[in-house]
């Protein structure tokens, strides 16, 4: 089913966040459902910020993604 637009924005934000700061490979995500890579990277981010590791884009995780921050990645090399 097509995502409601609010979800879609959140989804795009999360995808961009994870690719910028956690090395999520670009372009791999299908729009329907969670790919393994997406889930793995969300778990990495939740572990880093000591959030509950759910592997899903829960409210807490999304709220943190929206906070002002430094542009250097949290994990992985900075090329």
């Amino acid at each position, binding site marked *: 089913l097509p995502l409601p637009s609010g979800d879609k924005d959140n989804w795009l934000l999360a995808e961009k966040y994870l690719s910028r700061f956690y090395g999520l490979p670009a372009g791999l995500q299908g729009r329907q459902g969670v790919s393994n890579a997406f889930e793995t990277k969300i778990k990495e981010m939740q572990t880093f910020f000591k959030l509950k590791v759910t592997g899903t884009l829960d409210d807490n995780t999304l709220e943190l993604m929206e906070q002002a*921050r430094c*542009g250097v990645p949290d994990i992985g*090399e900075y090329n």
Partner: protein
Amino acid sequence: HFPGHLKWQNNNVTFRILNYTPDLQKSDVDRAIRNALNVWSAVTPLIFKKLHKGNADIMISFGSKEHGDYNPFDGPNGLLAHAYPPGQGIGGDTHFDDDEDWTKDSSAYNLFIVAAHELGHALGMSHSTDAGALMYPIYSYTTGYPLAEDDIEGIQALYGPNPNQRKVKPKPDAPNKCDPGLSFDAVTELRGETIIFKDRFYWRLHPQMPEPEQTLIKSTWPSIPNKVDAAYENPEKDIVIIFSGIRMWALNGYNLLDGYPKYIHKLGLPKTIKKVDAAVYISDTRKTLLFTDEDYWSYDEATGTMDSGYPRPIEVDFPGMDDEVDAAVSHYGYLYFFHEHLQYEYSYTSKRVLRILRTNSILNC
């Protein structure tokens, strides 16, 4: 650290400020950058020399969106700045997003704080998972000495200590919720959530969030001190009162109410009382109990006055309790008194301790 523990091979590091943000005086930017570098030179042998032309190790500039390194900024908020680890060329270079409002205070993004963080990267530090560390990736405005123990340990692992190190007082690391010796500063309810204050942090427990969330007090309430002594919720007035020293603040939800802080003596406490250890609202009697040292007081919320006949000794009216209380909260009709690493589940009606648990069992430890 970055993979490969990238660092400058020479302790004399040069920097150059290529351009300036229109948000601040040139001298303010110079000072902010110099103070940010001094944060790191104070605890390492590093010496920073300013160049006014040519290529420096650390080239500092302000730019917006795509600004020359194919690593674009994103307009206001979001990404604030970035920096590159030590190395030739772009290595060490530090860029600030000029779509942000840069300030010298807490009214917008404080340039000194962001610069100190980014220059940490330029010296070889990567991000910390400690919410109280300068190298934590999320911006928060803090006052006082900016480095935490975690930051100092990290930079000295790369460069060693400053041989002439002036005594610095680093911020303690964030408390570990499962430390068996953990004690609390204050506990209160807040619209169905439980807020637990410890040092500069608070944990937020939400019924649907089994994992407590740790946050800096000042990132939510910049004007409240870094240390909270006591807190209680009056659900009927929908306010939470937070005590620190001889002052108290009022929250409605997460918002600070105008007209605060007020002195705790406005409640009717004598001037000799300098600190409230714990506070809890008893909904049956509409009284708030305030604990100070070995005594407690009873404040009538309806009349706004302290009941006569107080203080009374805690030990006398709460049999089974230690004589001092760090924090108190009311849950499901029971009182929970916290003292050091233990918490006492107390029945206010039958006047006795029902169970003794570890303080941090409330944090799923």
